[in-house]
Each structure stands twice: as C-alpha cells, then as structure tokens.
C-alpha cells in the first residue's frame, strides 16, 4: 500500500497580494496584476506585464530578515516559504526535502558578466541560498522543466512521499520578469499587445508575470483537506517550441493521473488549466480536454490575473485553485470574452459558488512537456 500525500500549507507572493487571502480577495474583485510598464531596462517599447513592486517587496522582506544580500527572486521565494516553514514547526532532518522550481532563476545576473554574477545565475547557487535561509539539511532538488516546473514539483513531491523517501517536502516555485525572457518571447512574436485573453477569439499572445508560490507536501494529513491523488508528466514527442496539435502529451498526462486516482474524467469538478493565450496552446488544450470528455467541466486560466509566471505558474495556480475549492468557489477566467478555440470548453465567466471534490491542474511548455495533477478535497 502506497502512502498518501497531502498539501498541508500554501502561500504565494504576487503583484496582487503577499498571502493567499489577499490574492483571493483581489481575484474575487477581478483585480489583475497586469499593468502597462515603461521600463527600458526590461524592454525598449512599453509592455504589459504583472510585476511585483520592489518597495513593497523590500518592506515585507525587512520584516522577516535584516539581510540585504538577496536578489529580488530570492526575496520572493523566501517570503513565500517563510510562513509555511514557521508554522510547520518541523525538525528539518533528513526526512524533510526541499524542492525549488524555476525556469530561469537569477538569469538577470548574466547582464553583468563578472565571476560573482555568473555564480548567481547557477541554479544550485539560488537553491542553496534559499535553503540556507531556512536551514534545510537535505540537498535541494531543483526542477527546471520549462513552464510545467511548478506543478511538476507537486507530482515529484507526492511520488517521493509515496515511496517513503521523505515525510515532508517544502516546495517553492518562482520566476521573475526579465529582459532575457521578454526579449525571447518577443522574438517568437508570442507577446500580446494587450493584457492576455486566454481562450478568447481575440487573444494574441502571452503577457508575462512574476510570482513565487510555496506549499508543504506531507505524509501527515494533520488538518489538511487536500490530498494529491494522481499525476502524470508526459511529453508530446512532437515539437520543441510548439504543442502537439492533438494535445497528445496533455491527454496522456491527464489519463495517467485519472488511472492512478481511479476516477473517471466526468468526476472532475474543476480544471485550472494553463491558458497562456497563445493561439496554439489554448487550441491544443481545448482539443485534449474534448478528447477526454471534459468539454463541460468548468475551466479557468489565471493568466488574466498574473500573466504567465513561467516556472511559478503551475504551483501558483494550484495554490489559488486549492483555495477556491476549499472556499467552495470558482474564479472567473479573467480576459475571456468570446470562445476562440475550435472545440467547446466551459470557461468560467464569472465568480460563482460551487462545491468541488475533484480538482485538476494542468500545464504545458516548451520541449513538448505537459503535467497534470489531480487533487481531492477530503474531510
């Protein structure tokens, strides 16, 4: 008999709040973090993005540490983990793991190519800095698997707990808006010239964002109401910079999660999908969901609130999704107007009340990667 794994705590640091309650309150009021920015050190032309205010971040960080030698991303990650680590009262021994998910980490350090800066751009260096703050004993496990990194971490943590390798796993996922990533998405002509509009007819690309999210995954249920019941992370084997047109990898990832959870697709009450608002991604998701008979299941993308926060997105959106399930709510898929995918899907058009038991989180990314995790609300 495999052990069970639970999400016992969660938190997030985003432009619309430095804890889950503040985020959910803003989402309830349809307040988005996306704004028009004019910052030539990030991009020559004005651009839409969801960016955390530096002063607010520094003020919050000063309340937990007098240290000044942390980068913006490190502060975001430490602040996301801090209340969870404090509240857990756990002994950080060799049964406690630490997973850090990111796509680009401190990539901004490469702008100034000194030796020290180069060090900072190494992901193990970032992980060690965050781990040392909390005095974790085990070597950090870094996941860098494009835009599925954040939700893949939940899957990896669950598997390690099931197999009794660890009892408790702290996860933090984070990425920041950088010139590096902005210029890259721009070179792909994948950036929207307005706040992103997932699944809409008039969507025309991604809005980037930054955030950090954190959870504690534990074998000890405690007062947790969220169990991780199945997962899959399966590659499309189709293209490195675009999704499969049939949604093959996503389809199989969800199938794998359902088989493990021993539930049918029609039992899923709510899907927090990826919805980047690129033409190909949203279309691919609609196809995959239809192949599974999920066309009537309420679905949202939270990118309209946060933009695409890359390696943070999967975990951030799971944290918000979990909270909506706990509060018996469904949150609006902000930016959606008229359905713009070829297959029908049930996009959530306004905040509403609904009691959900099974919740699916999915993500897809460059390299043909996909990840799906199923959660169950338990008593």
């Amino acid at each position, binding site marked *: 008999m*495999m052990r069970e794994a639970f999400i016992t705590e969660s938190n997030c640091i985003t432009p619309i709040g430095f804890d889950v309650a503040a985020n959910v309150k803003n989402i309830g009021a349809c307040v988005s973090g996306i704004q028009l920015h004019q910052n030539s050190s990030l991009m020559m032309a004005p651009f839409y993005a969801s960016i955390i205010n530096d002063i607010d971040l520094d003020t919050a960080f000063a309340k937990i540490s007098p240290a000044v030698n942390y980068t913006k991303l490190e502060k975001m990650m430490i602040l996301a983990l801090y209340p969870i680590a404090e509240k857990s009262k756990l002994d950080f021994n060799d049964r406690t793991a630490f997973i850090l998910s990111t*796509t*680009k*980490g401190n*990539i901004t350090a*490469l*702008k100034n*190519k000194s030796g020290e800066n180069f060090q900072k*751009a*190494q*992901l*193990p260096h970032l*992980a*060690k800095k965050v781990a040392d703050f909390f005095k974790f004993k085990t*070597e950090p*496990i*870094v*996941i*860098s*698997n*494009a835009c599925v990194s954040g939700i*893949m971490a939940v899957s*990896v943590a669950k*598997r*390690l707990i*099931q*197999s*009794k*390798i660890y009892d408790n796993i702290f996860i933090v996922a984070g990425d920041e808006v950088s*010139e*590096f990533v902005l*210029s*890259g998405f*721009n*070179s*792909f002509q994948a950036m929207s010239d307005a706040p992103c509009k997932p699944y809409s007819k008039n969507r025309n690309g991604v809005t980037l964002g930054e955030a950090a999210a954190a959870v504690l995954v534990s074998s000890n249920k405690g007062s947790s109401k969220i169990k991780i019941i199945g997962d*899959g*992370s*399966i*590659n*499309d*084997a*189709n*293209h*490195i*910079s675009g999704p499969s047109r049939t949604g*093959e*990898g996503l389809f*199989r990832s969800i199938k*794998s999660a359902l088989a*493990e959870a021993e539930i049918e697709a029609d039992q899923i009450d709510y899907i927090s999908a990826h919805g980047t608002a690129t033409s190909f991604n949203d279309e691919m998701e609609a196809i995959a969901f239809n192949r599974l008979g999920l066309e009537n299941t309420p679905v949202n993308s939270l990118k309209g609130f946060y933009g695409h926060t890359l390696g943070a997105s999967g975990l951030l959106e799971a944290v918000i999704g979990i909270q909506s399930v706990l509060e018996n709510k469904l949150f609006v898929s902000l930016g959606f107007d008229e359905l713009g995918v070829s297959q029908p899907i049930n996009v959530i058009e306004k905040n509403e009340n609904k009691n959900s038991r099974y919740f699916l989180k999915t993500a897809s*990314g*460059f*390299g*043909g*990667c996909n990840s799906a995790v199923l959660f169950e609300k338990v008593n």
Partner: protein
Amino acid sequence: MTENKNYIHSFCTIQNNKIVLNDETVFEAESTSFADFSKQAYKKLEINYPKFFKMDSLSKLAFLGAEILLKAEIDPEAENNIALVFANKSSSLDTDVKYQETISHEENYFPSPAVFVYTLPNICLGEISIRHQLKTENSFFIFEEFNPEFLVNYANVLLDTKKADKVLCGWVEYFNEEYKAFLYLVAKEGVVEHQIETIKTVYKK
C-alpha cells in the same frame, strides 16, 4: 524503499572526445572542439537526422547518449514506455550566455527564437522524445553535482508505480566546452542490480 528489484540494463559515457558503451569504446576523436567531435560522432554512428545540427551543445550531448542506448531498445511498431529522468549542474547556461550576448548591445541586438528555445535544459528531453517517439514521463532536475541517490530513488519510483516500463537516466553537463554525459537504462530485468553504489562506481569510470 524499492518494492521490486530493478536492474541497470546498459550505460554510456561521453567525455574527453570519447564515447564508451558498457566499458567498450564506441568512438574516439583526436583532441578537438565539442562541435567537431559531435559531428564526427554523428557520422560514425550513421545517425542521419538533420535536425541534430540545429541543436545546442547540451541537446547534442544528451541526444548522442540516448542514441547509443536506445537504438537497440526501441521497437518502432510499439509504444515504448521509457521515461526520461535527466539532470545536470549548469542547466542551459551555455546557451543562456550565448543568448544574452544577442540582447546585450543596443547596436547589435538580434534575439533569435532558434537560440532562445534552447535556454531551457529540458529541451534536450524533447529532442530525445521526438527522435524516439517517446510519449512518456519526462523530467529535468538540477543538482550541484552528480546525485546518484536521487536518480536511483526517482527511477525506482517510476518503475514501481508503473508510470514507466524502463527509465533512461542521464547526467548531461555542458558548459563552455567542458562536458560529461553519463546515461544508463534501468529495467525490471537484468543482471546488474540498480543500486546507488553501483551507479557511483560506473559514473567514475
């Protein structure tokens, strides 16, 4: 922790202009750059896959290792549930530095999507998946150094939970012409038991 015994089916090392499969040298080149070495290896192994030349160095390195180990394993007529569990230290930093160069000078600003896409370490998994049509579990991890404990545990988890029939594990480190690839295939049948100590010994060869 493992419920069933698993086995190391085969292993491959690529370093110092040399490719070794199960202790036997498959290909060796005179002292040269990685670009030249990988091109020579591609020809010698008769790979015939032009997409190879569009890849960055990390993907070429991982691709060559996978080619050596999977050639005999893949049944093109069947579904091959071989998971990919890869890791390294420097992520995609070699290509990151090259991409950064293309956006650092206002007068010489030419970001290219063909370079940008390789600024993620898991792209090499996508390349291997496409080549061998592996619609399977994929994940890329980063550690300060080769971490046999994690790789062995995670491969066992995938096999024991039946998420995969076999697991191709790989340590694929590439930065600035310094490289090492160590890949091995874990299966449910075999002779050499899949144990941390064994992996450590084979890695050091």
